[in-house]
């Protein structure tokens, strides 16, 4: 069983204790904080592998914490939403969250999500592919644009590699959810949409007029370089 260093931010002490208990039992090592400010102060020192953030926090909320974490590094983030309200989810995904779960969450489900996100992108035997300025090194799991390294979160990298593996082919959201997020659940296709948006923002010269990842309305996405 893989042990992950988890940063948990949750203001309610009972929920915090219970989640800590459950995740520790699944074999993870958990550090928890009651506020976003505290968590941000310790994030550098702790170097967790994943952050689980409650959205409703006193002070700065989980979405803002997520936004600030994204600025620092590629730490994967799962949001813990109390409402499952569409607005929260959309805003959270736009802020860079990799996934979200709705309270009350079953420990097994949360564990599955954590493991799916921490699953390393598989290194391919063949190494690097070049699409103009964009170079994807599938051996080293590195992406460079015009010689500059692009920092992708593990989820973003996995999604990009999945698309690149089937060039010119339309992949539907359901397929991508299973391949990248391990969701067998009727999951939210907005996860895919938000992640594609983030990748485009990083690799497309003009994200509004994408040249690498094309949207096929009603079906999904296609990677077809110019």
């Amino acid at each position, binding site marked *: 069983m893989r042990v992950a260093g988890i940063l948990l931010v949750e203001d309610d002490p009972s929920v915090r204790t219970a989640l800590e208990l459950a995740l520790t039992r699944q074999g993870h090592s958990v550090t928890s904080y009651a506020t976003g400010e505290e968590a941000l102060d310790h994030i550098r020192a702790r170097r967790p592998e994943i952050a689980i953030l409650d959205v409703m926090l006193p002070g700065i909320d989980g979405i803002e914490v997520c936004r600030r974490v994204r600025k620092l590094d590629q730490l994967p983030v799962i949001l813990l939403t109390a409402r499952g309200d*569409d607005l929260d989810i959309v805003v959270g995904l736009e802020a860079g969250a990799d996934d979200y779960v709705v309270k009350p969450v079953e420990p097994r489900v949360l564990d599955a999500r954590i493991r799916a996100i921490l699953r390393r992108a598989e290194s391919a035997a063949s190494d690097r592919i070049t699409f103009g300025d964009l170079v994807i090194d599938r051996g080293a799991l590195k992406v460079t644009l015009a010689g500059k390294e692009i920092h992708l979160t593990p989820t973003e990298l996995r999604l990009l590699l999945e698309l690149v593996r089937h060039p010119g082919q339309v992949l539907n959201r359901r397929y991508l959810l299973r391949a990248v997020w391990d969701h067998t659940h009727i999951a939210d296709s907005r996860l895919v949409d938000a992640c594609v948006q983030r990748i485009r923002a990083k690799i497309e010269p003009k994200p509004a007029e994408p040249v690498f990842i094309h949207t096929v309305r009603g079906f999904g996405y296609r990677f077809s370089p110019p």
Partner: protein
Amino acid sequence: MIPLPTGLRARLVITFTLVAVTASMLVATIGFELAKTALVTRTERTSMDLVVRELGGVDFPVGRPRPGEAAPTSRELNRLAQTMSAPGRSVVVEYGDLVSVTGPMNLRDVPNELYGRAKQSVVTQRRVIRGELWLIVGTEVYRATNGVPEATGLRAFVFFPMRADVGQLDTLRARLFQGGIAIVLIALVVALFSARQVLLPVRRLSAAAQALGEGRLDTRLPVHGHDELAGLTARFNDAAAALELSVSELRSLEAMSRRFVADVSHELRTPLTAMTAVTDVLSEEADRLPEAPAEAVRLVLREIERLRELVEHLIEISRFDAGTATLNLEPVNVADAIDDCLGTRGWNEQVKVNASQGLTANLDPRRFDVIVANLVGNALKHGGPPVVVSARSTENGLEIRVRDHGKGIPREALPHVFDRFFKAGAGRARSQGSGLGLAIARANVHLHGGTISVRAQEPGTLFTVWLPHT
């Protein structure tokens, strides 16, 4: 709008017209009769005067002959007839065997009754002879003998033509008729106008009442004047204001109670999250506990699960009640979506699916999942195997059918299965389900603009969902 005969306008117009027709007929008839009497009386008087004057001037001897008198000759009679005659007139003079006639009439045209009466005095009679009206004046000449009048046997009958009088009366009748028509027309116009005066406020009131019925509770009407309609309008405004007030009070009470349910559900979520997080720990520990505490732990776990479902459903329902439920449509592969729905809940083995792979529809996938999950969950809990889910495309939408082969729902309970907290049959275990599943399924179907229905089968129950193409 074509006014029906029962309409207020038609009734007003008909009444006005009837009154006008009756009144003008009455006036015309009276006027005509008066004019006719006056005319006839005048004609009779002048005719009688003429006859009396002419006969008064008879200068030849008639009656019992006096000494030295010779019986009148027919020449003298003719002369007398000539003096009374005029163009168009006809005169018959009789004296014994002698008869003198001018004009087209003769003695046979004199009515017997008039002939008889003429012995006593000057008499008149109007009579139609050969298609024309005549005034016949008849009399016998009397001669004074020693101061005593004595009948002479000389009788004269003068036929005065009444053509001119009839013509005048015809003209009068025509004028009166025209006047009557004009009065009726004026009455009609006045009727229409006053009907409009009455109907306009009535129509306005009717439109306002309709608006009120359609939920526009702020509908009010301006009050003009002090008549009964103004009073009615004022009452209407009062009623609308009272209604608006009580409806807004009810609404705010309802909104408050809904918000309360939503708030309570949200508050319950936090302790539930904590409890849910440790269910795995508890359930593993339960295996190591003695029988009684293990049973207690399992009961707590079951109830946590039930509470979780109830809270989820309450939150979902309160979102519909608050009107914040939104529809996120996207093209969905129906077979895949059903597959995912069943797979997530571990129902693949228990449920048979009939859906063609190529079937796609524009749906909110999360809501579709909720619909199918609630219907299938209901079938599995309350119905009996096999449970069959079938999906097919119809002309204008998507049809999903969920069929179970259980004992079925009592017929009288069928119309209520979509009601909140309705449990079909008292025998059904209270612990099964939140009682909101089918209500949520229906709300989700309605959000798509679709329909949901239930029908008893032999055996089992069939739920049919139809979602329109969008």
